[in-house]
């Protein structure tokens, strides 16, 4: 069974016919070829599939693709406006080694975007709560927390490394 879906992803409009059984993460990866959105568990636990739906982070493995009809989505590909420059959050993850295998990273970065939008200057405890929906099996989280602390400084400093860096 096919269902027509119109979505805006990373400010670009798409009109596709999807298999009704597709979840949103499948549609992003297989129909729109935006493979930055990862599928880890497929059951809403790991957060690798995190995307921004109408301004709020959600787990795209728990949303039926057809249900995203008419909605606006941002994926990791849409975070930086430039093809050659990283978003300050991405740059902070690179420079603080906030990743090892990188599988969880798109979700971690988008959860960081949400966290710092809601709370530009979070405590370490608030950071850990903010990324509690994202699992990382490599880093032990410490470098991710440090990356987010650095990202907060960069964002409050016009995207540049903070004074203490």
């Amino acid at each position, binding site marked *: 069974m096919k269902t027509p879906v119109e979505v805006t992803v990373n400010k670009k409009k798409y009109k596709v016919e999807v298999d009704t*059984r*597709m979840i949103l993460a*499948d549609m992003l990866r297989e129909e729109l070829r935006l493979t930055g959105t990862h599928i880890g568990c497929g*059951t*809403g636990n790991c957060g690798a599939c995190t995307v921004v*739906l109408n301004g709020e982070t959600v787990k795209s493995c728990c949303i039926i693709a057809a*249900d995203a009809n008419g909605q606006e989505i941002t994926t990791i590909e849409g975070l930086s406006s430039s093809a050659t420059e990283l978003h300050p959050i991405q740059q902070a993850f690179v420079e603080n080694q906030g990743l090892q295998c990188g599988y969880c990273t798109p979700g971690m970065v988008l959860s960081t975007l949400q966290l710092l939008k809601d709370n530009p200057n979070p405590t370490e405890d608030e950071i850990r709560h903010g990324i509690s*929906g994202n699992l990382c099996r490599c880093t032990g989280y410490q470098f991710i927390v440090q990356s987010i602390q650095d990202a907060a400084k960069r964002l409050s400093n016009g995207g540049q490394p903070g004074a203490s860096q």
Partner: protein
Amino acid sequence: MISEEFEFRAPTKLAEALSLLERYGDDAKILAGGMSLVPMMTLGLVRPKTVISFNHITDLNFVIDAKDVIRIGAMTRHDTVAHHDLIKKHLPLLATAAVGIGDVQVRHRGTIGGSLAHADPAADYPPVMLVAGAQFRIQSAKGDRMVKAAEFFTGLMQTAVGAGEVLSEIHVPKLPAGAGSAYLRLHRVEGSFPIVNAAAVIEKGFKSARVAIGGVGESAVMIDVTKHLSKGVSDQSLRAISDAAYDASGDAYGDLNGDTEYRRAMARVYAQRVIKAAAAQIR
């Protein structure tokens, strides 16, 4: 990818959704936030013939001050319940329960109506609904009725919502002036379902006191503890409440998170803690 084929409908008006529910009856599954239903479909545990999404019915997403009650639309997301000023002011225990559900992403999408209708035995909302004396609005193409929280949860993942019906609104009475309330959950890791949870409301001057405990039976149990607290909180009154919580949790199930006796022991602990926390909030 979900393996089983299904028909997908996404009405934008409640009336349209109700007529679809009437037409499809038991073959239809209502999709709210989908935080439980979609993974269950992915795993093949639920295989509906038709899925009717309520995500495009914007009329069911609201929090309204209606004199003595707060009216909450069934499609209101947990994140809104957790942070809405009306709920924080009049039903602080409900905001506390919502803020602990799942994680940020789950709270952005999951809904209060979906969680209540799913009726997991250890879900966060049911004990709160019981102690607050909530009423549930259930609508169908032919009818519109109100059901008390105590009659809404009818068994393990079972509710009073029948075929062709939908839970459309939750009416939660504002706490009486000066009342103390609290909600606590025992969970293994951040974001996991509670093993045992408890909610309490105590009226000023200990005129009335209720505690409800989840995770210790097919659905949450409520205990009227007014008589135990007639002279306020004391070691003796807490012991009596602990015994009452143990007695009320005789149907506790066992699973990997804890056997029956563990849950009953935790019912004792959490009943006492939630009463102490609620009493401390009396103004």
